[in-house]
């Protein structure tokens, strides 16, 4: 059986065989130097997260020479949720980790699992909306990592100009524009079900319209008094997706396309609308620097032009697990404070392009922001933006992405999917021990 020592020996032997440049600190277990505290920052493995985290780690180390930060990545999506839960439950969480705020945070049992940061100085500089999503009445658990993004439609302005289209303010106008795009030989709406999470935007991004129609939806939803199948306004998102499929507006390869494929279609003007989280603009800027000025954003339109607006996602947050102690805890708190400071925002912007503002006072966006970011800013300035449901209610089911793939592929009708999603949600609510379920 391999004892740790044997293992270390083999590892050392193998390492010696590598060129010296390979042994950056922490690549094979942590080598602890005198007086230096080593901590690890765990982030999702999407390109924009990793680059931002690495930039933050570097900037932080430059200011704090007694701390060594290693960036570790984890898968995203449900896989990531699972990993975070097991690592927390088994006391195996790195000193600082980045994870969603909102309902996914509530599923982590934060009161027991995370360090309460409400006594930290930076808390006063952070927007209240974020603090609500990254904690609750009994504490604040995370500092904002990343910028606000929208769950909205990315569209190709150049094609809009060529076809003489205008930004739609109702669902019918949106459909008409998509048909015009389709009739010009392009994909009206880009869908990429090769990565299932991308299929949820018709539903999740429609929440601004749901709330406009039913202002008490989140409270009643949390209390199990209303669901997606029983609220006509909420059901619309599923119905929209079904309509879009039935009209044949999607790109031909939507069943197997990956979202980078979708970005390529959009950037090259072969597709016109792409409902997605706008954080992907950062990747778009990297892969298609020439097209970035042609890409704009508008919120998924509802039935009423008067209440037109956009659904926004509160940034992820950096948390410290309760298992972090001593010098590591101190270093972790300093790192989190740095993330929530203007210097931390600048470092993140350097790593990856933000598409929305940081919820921290004093944080400036870089001089040159993509056109998409300016579009989102207009909604925010005009106060036509609503946080997504997951930031207003702890209830969220794990199977939505599979259901929306089915609706968008014509496998299952909208009302059926909405009913199944309500059942899916019930399991999560019961697991959380919420009242009324």
């Amino acid at each position, binding site marked *: 059986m391999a004892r740790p020592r044997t293992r270390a020996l083999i590892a050392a032997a193998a390492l010696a065989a590598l060129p010296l440049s390979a042994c950056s600190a922490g*690549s094979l277990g942590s080598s602890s130097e005198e007086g230096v505290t080593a901590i690890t920052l765990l982030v999702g493995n999407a390109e924009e997260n990793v680059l931002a985290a690495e930039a933050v780690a570097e900037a932080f180390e430059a200011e704090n020479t007694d701390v060594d930060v290693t960036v570790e990545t984890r898968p995203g999506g449900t896989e990531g949720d699972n990993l975070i839960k097991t690592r927390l439950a088994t006391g195996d969480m790195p000193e600082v980790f980045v994870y969603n705020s909102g309902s996914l945070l509530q599923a982590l049992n934060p009161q027991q699992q995370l360090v309460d940061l409400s006594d930290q100085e930076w808390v006063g500089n952070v927007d209240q909306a974020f603090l609500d999503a990254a904690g609750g009445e009994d504490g604040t658990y995370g500092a904002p990592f990343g910028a606000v993004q929208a769950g909205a439609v990315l569209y190709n302005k150049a094609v809009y100009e060529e076809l003489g289209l205008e930004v739609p303010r109702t669902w019918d106008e949106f459909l008409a524009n998509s048909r015009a795009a389709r009739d010009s030989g392009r994909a009206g709406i880009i869908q990429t079900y090769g990565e299932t999470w991308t299929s949820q935007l018709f539903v999740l991004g429609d929440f601004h319209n749901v709330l406009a129609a039913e202002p008490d939806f989140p409270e009643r939803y949390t209390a199990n008094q209303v669901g997606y199948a029983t609220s006509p306004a909420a059901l619309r998102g599923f119905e929209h997706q079904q309509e879009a499929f039935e009209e044949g507006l999607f790109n031909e390869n939507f069943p197997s396309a990956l979202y980078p494929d979708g970005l390529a279609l959009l950037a090259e003007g072969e597709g016109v609308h792409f409902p997605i989280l706008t954080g992907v603009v950062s990747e778009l800027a990297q892969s298609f620097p020439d097209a970035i000025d042609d890409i704009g954003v508008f919120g998924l339109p509802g039935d009423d032009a008067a209440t037109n607006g956009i659904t926004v996602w509160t940034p992820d947050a950096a948390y410290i697990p309760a298992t972090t102690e001593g010098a590591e805890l101190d270093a972790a708190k300093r790192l989190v404070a740095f993330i929530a400071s203007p210097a931390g925002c600048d470092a993140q912007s350097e790593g990856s392009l933000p598409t929305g503002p940081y919820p921290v006072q004093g944080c400036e966006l870089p001089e040159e922001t993509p056109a998409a970011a300016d579009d989102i800013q207009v909604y925010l300035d005009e106060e036509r933006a609503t946080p997504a449901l997951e930031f207003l209610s702890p209830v969220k089911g794990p199977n939505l992405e599979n259901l929306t793939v089915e609706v968008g592929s014509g496998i299952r009708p909208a009302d059926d999917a909405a009913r199944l999603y309500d059942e899916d949600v019930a399991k999560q609510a019961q697991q959380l021990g919420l009242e009324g379920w």
Partner: protein
Amino acid sequence: MKALYRWGGGALAIVVTGVVFIVPFVFILLTAMKTRAEANRLEFSWPTEMAVVQNFVEVLETRNYILVIAFINSTILTVASVAGMVVLAAMVAFVLQRRPSRWNPFVNFLVLSGLIIPPAVVPTIWVLQAIGLFRTMPGLILVQIAFGLSFSILLFRAFIATIPREVDEAAVIDGAGPLRLFFTVVLPLLKPVVVTVVVVQAVNVFNDFVTPLYFLPGERNATVQLTLYNFQSQFTTQYNLLFMNILLITIPMLLLYVFFNRQIVGGMTSGAVKG
């Protein structure tokens, strides 16, 4: 007629198996040699520009040489678990075959249930955590041994039945205790089936990605299959690197097979077949 079957059948088989079995391998190889742009076209074609060295270096360098660490981890895991399975399973099979007792039906039942029952993952995590072995290499090795025991015992038991008891008797008369009898007399005689068990279980353990995914999370603990799993989400549009990774992590098992090719059937002949 016979010659026609011999050569014609052979040639036909070579063509058919070539299309069915070789083409996917060649596809992996070709894609691993291409540049990113060309690989993403997913075509079955000779690369116009050789990028095999760049791809190799880039895959190794990804995430701080994680693949190298993974190879070390996978090697330790495979060697230790397979060695454990061979020794423990052969001991059980030896006594089980040689000594009929009231325990036998019970032991046989356990062996069969080990084959049939899907492992209860979360409770196993719970147990491992209670004994302090969760997310440790020894913990994962023991889990792999536990999961692989049943099949190994079946192979060993059938083979031991073919070894005459006279061999044991002679050794006992020479004064050998049970340990010496087993390790110096019986185990060496099991060599053919040991080879079979080693190859089959090494392939299983080395290629397993679910068990490490559950029981040894954490980037520093990655096994080669987990790197492939993670690269899949990271390299969504870099098929050249993805397939280079597949290629690299397939080579060790191909080599193992090439070395032991002839012996594998030998162990099976007496093992699994007589059940």
